[in-house]
Structure formats: C-alpha cells, structure tokens
C-alpha cells in the first residue's frame, strides 16, 4: 500500500517547509550576492565558483529542512504507524518508500528553486549570466538528497522513539541541520581527506550539487580552485550507499515502532 500521493501532497502544502526551505534561504542568497561578495577577485571563473559554492551549501541546508519536517511530524504519528502496520495494508517498506518519494519530489522542487534564485540574484549582481550547467544532474542529485534526508530523519527518530525516549527528540530534530552546517561549511574552507569527502553523505551532496551547477568538478576545498578535484562517480556511489542503508534501517526500525505519547518529549 502506497501513501506516496497523500504524503507528497502533505509535504508540498506544508507552508512552514516553504518558509524555512525557500524564504529563509533566499534571505541568505541576498547576503551572499550583495554583501559577502565584496572581496571576490575579478573574472568569470571566480564568479562561477563563488556562485556554485553558495548554491551547493544553501541547497544542502534547504534540503535539510525536509529532514527536520519529517522528523517532527513522525513523532506525532507513532501510534498511527504502530496501528497501521498491524491493522491496515500499510507496510513499513511501503511507508518508507512513500516518504522517500514525497521527500524526493520536495527535494527536487527545493533545489530547482534554489538554482533559480541563485542564478537570478548572482547574475544580476555580477552583470553576467551564471546559470546551472547541468539541470538534469541537479534534478537527480536533489531526488537522491531528498531520499537521504528522509532516511536519515526516519532512522534518527525511530532510534529515539524505540530506544532512547522522546526527551532526546529536540536534539535529533536539529542533528541533520547541525551536521549540514558542520560538513557543508567545512568543505568550503578546510581540506578534508578525499576518502572522507566520498564517505560523508553531506559532502557527497555538496560536491555533486557544486559540480552540477558549475559544470566543473568540485574540489577538496570549494573556495580553493587549485585543490584536488573530486571524482563524481565515487560521490554518487557514496550517496546512493547511504540512501540504501538508511532506507533499509528505517524499514527495520519501523517494524519495531513503539507507540509513544508526544507529551513524553516535553522538556519543561
């Protein structure tokens, strides 16, 4: 039994997600285009790199809002899921896939909107067209990234619900965002080992989004064009591996989902 359509509809009509995933990020894009770009060396190459780096980091953060929305809403539905898996046609695998589809569609939309806003604002500021080099690649990476965020959120929430107790929920809800900030900004300025960049899903997403926008391979340090280039097939493999692993983990944990009252999560 698939809930892909109702979940996709529910995600697409979640105005809080649109605010944090789009409106809030647009605010940062304005700052990136008009405030932080002051010290940029002249030349189109630098402008493209700069724009692509902003796109990759902001798209990553925008996608992370998906994970937070899914994590929050799932805590309210533990009883519904525990009942649904027993006494309806809903299966853990069907539920996980439905959520992944919904997250993938929303991820696709978020990334396209990010690409649109970035190319509009940065092109206007630099007085030259800086458009995405590979839109189909952005689409593919966004769908994969949405599925990753869904898998991550689901797995984290279920570990808390099943084993740790809902009091840890506020930390878990913010964990994807914290990790996105940590790994996203680290790759901007710090030379992390290549193997780590391939294994870390946040860096995989960032590198792939960068390459899809810029049209040239991402480097170990995104703000230093001279650093070693990353090989995109390995980044794709790393990200796909994480998606498969997290969706599998989510399906297993869903089978053991415990009905909890969201009141358990109250801090005060």
């Amino acid at each position: 039994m698939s809930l892909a359509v109702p979940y996709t509809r529910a995600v697409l009509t979640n105005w809080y997600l649109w605010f944090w995933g789009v409106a809030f990020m647009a605010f940062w894009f304005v700052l990136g285009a008009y405030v932080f770009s002051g010290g940029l060396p002249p030349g189109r190459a630098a402008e493209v790199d700069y724009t692509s780096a902003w796109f990759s980091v902001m798209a990553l953060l925008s996608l992370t809002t998906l994970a937070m929305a899914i994590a929050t809403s799932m805590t309210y539905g533990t009883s519904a899921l525990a009942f649904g898996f027993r006494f309806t046609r809903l299966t853990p695998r069907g539920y996980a896939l439905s959520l992944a589809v919904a997250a993938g569609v929303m991820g696709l939309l978020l990334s396209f909107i990010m690409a649109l806003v970035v190319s509009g604002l940065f092109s206007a500021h630099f007085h030259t067209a800086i458009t995405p080099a590979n839109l189909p690649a952005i689409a593919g990476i966004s769908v994969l990234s949405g599925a990753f965020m869904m898998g991550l959120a689901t797995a984290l929430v279920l570990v808390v619900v099943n084993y740790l107790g809902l009091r840890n929920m506020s930390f878990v809800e913010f964990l994807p965002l914290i990790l996105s900030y940590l790994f996203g900004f680290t790759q901007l300025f710090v030379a992390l080992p290549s193997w780590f960049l391939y294994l870390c899903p946040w860096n995989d997403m960032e590198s792939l989004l960068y390459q899809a926008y810029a049209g040239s391979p991402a480097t170990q340090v995104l703000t230093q064009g001279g650093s070693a280039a990353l090989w995109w097939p390995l980044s794709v493999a790393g990200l796909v591996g994480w998606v498969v692993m997290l969706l599998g983990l989510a399906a297993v944990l869903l089978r053991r989902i415990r009905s909890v009252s969201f009141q358990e999560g109250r801090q005060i």
Partner: protein
Amino acid sequence: MRQFEEQVGSLFPCRHVRPNYDRPEEFSVRQKTRLRRRPKLPLPMSSEDWGKDSPPLSPRNGPRTDLGTGRTATGPGSRLSFRNVFVRYPGSEVDAVSGASLDLHREKIVIVGPNGCGKSSLLKAALGLAPVTQGTVRVLGEDVRSIHGRTGVGTNLEEVYRLMTVPVGRLISIWAALKGGSDVDLRRSIDAFGLTSVVDRPLFRLSTGQTKLIGNLFALAFAPQLVLLDEPFDNVDFARRRKCIDLLLRSDASIALNTHELDLLHSFPDWGLFFMFEGQLIGRFRAGDIDRLYVNRGVREDSLAQFHTSLGEVSVTLGRGEVPMKAAANLDYLLDRIS
C-alpha cells in the same frame, strides 16, 4: 462498619498497593492465596447461575467465565484473547493492567471501571499500543506483537488516525485505501450524524465530542470483525449517543467497549459485562443484570466475584447487598459510597 472504615479508610480514590512482581516469592504467595479463595466462588456464570428470573445469556455473549478470575472457557475462533496480561508504562512503578485474562468470540462486551483503572490500557494492549510486560495478547488468532496487515480491526482511539495532518475528508479516502474498502458508507454515516461540516477540518481542529464520534464511525467502518472502543460516548450529546448505540447494537463485529458510565449498561442488556479495578479485570457478568448487582465491603458467602483493592476485599453479589450498582452513575461514585 466503623471498624471496617477505620481499617480501610476511603476505598477510592486510592493509591495502588500491589504485589511486587519484581519479587517472585511475593508474587507467588499472593497468587496462592487467591487460588485458595477462588474455588469457593460460584462457578462460571451462565443463565443458571444467575437465578430463575434472570434472562438467559444470549448465545452471542459467548463462553462461560470463571467469575473473579476472568478465565474463560476458550475455544477456536477467539477474536481477542488476553492471557495473564500485565501492562506497565516506562517510568511507572505500578502496572496499568495486572494479570488480565479474557476471551472475546463473536460477542459484545462492556468493560466498566473507574477513571484510571486500566481500561484504556487494556484496549491499547490489544492494539499493540501499550507495553505488555508479561502475558500474551492475541488478536484474530495472531500474537499482537507479530500481527500485520489484518484489516478487520477497528478502534476509536484518536491517535491511530494521526498518520498525517489532513482534513477528515481526505483521511477518509486514505483510510479506505489502507483498509481496502469503500469510503461511501463512512461518508454516509458522517452525514447521518450531522458531521458533514467537519470533513474540511483536520481531526485536531474538532471538538472532543466530534473527535470521539468520528473515531467511533471510523472504528465501525470497513466491515470490521473486531471493534475496540474507548469511552465512545464521552462528550457526545444525547441524540447522537442514541444513534451510536443503535449502530453498536446492529454491528456484526465483536465489540469490546469500555466506559465509566454505569447508566450506559441499560442500553446493552445482552452484552457481557466486566469490571475493572486497579488494573484487575473481573467478570464475566451480564450487562442486563446491572440493576441486580450489589457491591459489598469484604468477602461474602454469596458473592459472585470478589477482588482485592489496595484498601481491602470487595465483593459483588446478585439480588441483595450493601450498595446497589444502579444507585451510581459511575463507579467512582459507587466506590466512594461503600467506603
């Protein structure tokens, strides 16, 4: 009487003082005490047990039950089965349900008990929503821990319908797909109950009574075999109560309904009746005999059932006794009177 009152004080509300099940030696002593006492009680209820003027049990009321123990003569086809079930929530030091045993076949029963006695926990245990620490729960013949995809169970618990934030109208469509049925009858029922206006709103925007009614209608929709209803008439107005009662009486499903309102039992005279006190399930009786049942302090020779509370033994008698059950609107009041 005064001596009794001094000994036991006020019976309800009371603190639960239970055997410590973490200490097996204490538990076993308690169980032995009970086992010695139980054989003195009348044997399983049947129409004969209830006296000449008591109408016979309807065949739909199912199997005979050992009064006071909740043990039931079981047979094949039990739609809901509890075997010595204990429920304890994380962080709690008392059991919400203590050793409940029950078999529900093609029949309907009411479980009556004061607020906080464990009625809802019992139903949640049947739905896999409460932590069962001991014993087994079987639904439609399968262990509730491993059951999946059995669409023949309905409930009015609001939390099971919180799959996503959607208006009731869309929830009906989603639920029809999940249950593999048509949503036509459910929409018709909602119209018949004058709830058409709520279909554009999500559940959490409805009043308590509207939420309860919608839950009742969802529970009875899609041709269920087993319906578990938690306080189905709470905050429901009189006219709609009447309609709900009619629906329940006409339903072909096995129904376990819990309530703290004794008045309601007159609407279900042929249904089986259980009482629940401090997590213990006591029965089975017959709902139609509620006017002839009495509650008494201590153990009596003619008691049909007796149970231990934290403040002493309480027995149930038929035809005569200290406090008539019919005198009370609910069990909290009743137990307050005998204390």
